[in-house]
């Protein structure tokens, strides 16, 4: 009787341990990363019109407020170069730096815990902060240098197109709504009638570091004025 009780407890313990290990290694989020995201109905992307952008940082502030990003770190940056020309006729160029939501995301590929994943329904590259151990491998792997460790959660953080905060409510991302000059266009790449696709078909755009094979989904409309830069 004694031995059978011990065996029963041992068996139960082994079963619980086995189930927990199984769920950690094979969670539904990890499965998402393996499935082919190109088969889905929705694939979100963004266009930043550098001619319309005025560098006001309203997008940065809106993102900070909506996604509760602490001071000192940010999910989106507007990089400013210039001034070009002579006073008083000067101009600047603005470039949005944020997650490019790569189709072949290096951060997802290197993540050892499966915390970094591509959402199969939307094509959004997201972070599951519960699974992130803060090893910073993704930060090192990201060629666009847009990932950071959130000082409050101590996990990797970055732009997720406001998936949790705005898209779940049926709203556009906070930065898009905050932009006073409508320099940001967000939409579904798979929908030919979306403003995003129409814009991509009418204006020449570029994407950063495409030669790395990352297939990013953040498009830029190049600044027209200013000097020719080599």
């Amino acid at each position, binding site marked *: 009787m004694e031995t059978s009780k011990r065996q029963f407890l041992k068996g139960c313990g082994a079963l619980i341990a086995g189930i927990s290990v199984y769920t950690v290694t094979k969670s539904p989020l990890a499965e998402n990363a393996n499935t082919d995201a190109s088969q889905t109905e929705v694939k979100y992307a963004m266009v930043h019109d550098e001619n319309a952008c*005025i560098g*006001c*940082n309203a997008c*940065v*502030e809106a993102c900070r407020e909506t996604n509760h990003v602490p001071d000192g770190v940010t999910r989106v940056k507007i990089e400013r170069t210039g001034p070009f020309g002579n*006073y*008083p006729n*000067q101009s600047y160029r603005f470039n949005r730096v944020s997650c490019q939501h790569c189709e072949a995301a290096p951060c997802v590929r290197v993540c050892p815990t499966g915390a970094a994943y591509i959402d199969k329904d939307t094509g959004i590259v997201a972070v599951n902060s519960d699974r992130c151990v803060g090893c910073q491998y993704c930060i090192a792997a990201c060629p666009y240098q847009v990932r950071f460790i959130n000082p409050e959660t101590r996990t990797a953080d970055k732009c997720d197109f406001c998936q949790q905060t705005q898209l779940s409510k049926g709203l556009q991302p906070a930065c898009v709504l905050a932009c006073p*000059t409508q320099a940001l266009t967000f939409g579904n790449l798979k929908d030919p009638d979306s403003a995003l696709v129409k814009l991509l078909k009418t204006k020449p755009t570029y994407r950063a570091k495409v030669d790395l094979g990352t297939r990013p989904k953040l498009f830029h409309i190049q600044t027209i004025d200013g000097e020719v830069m080599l």
Partner: protein
Amino acid sequence: MCQISRSLSIVLTTLITASIFCTLPTITLAAQTENDTRTCLKCHKRNGQLHGVHASTALAIECQDCHGDKGSHPKKGSSINRFGANSPMSVTQQVAVCLSCHDPQTLANTEWTHNVHATRVSCTLCHQLHPEYDPMLSLDSKQHSQLCVTCHQVKH
């Protein structure tokens, strides 16, 4: 003895008169400039007061330094400089008054937006000189971006 004292008194009188005549113009000039700022403040008790950094005694800024000569003011047709959104002066004219002291390069180093607004927006649309504190100097990053939005908002 009497002769000497008479000649002495004549010399003294001429000296005193000469000295009065020599100093008189400078005294009246000083009195005039002082009077001008005071004259302005007689009417402009509230809106004429200058506080903050521009009121520093070391700068010794007079109303006339920015607003120009009184001329026929307050009668019609005065050429007095008025600033702000309803100013009859062009943006370049308004900015030129500030640039007589301020250097564009220093302004650009402090805040890059100075450069791109130099010919489009007068300084006084954002800055206020008369109050104790210029509201532009205490903006946080959110207020700063909202200030851009107030003008640049594209109507839907």
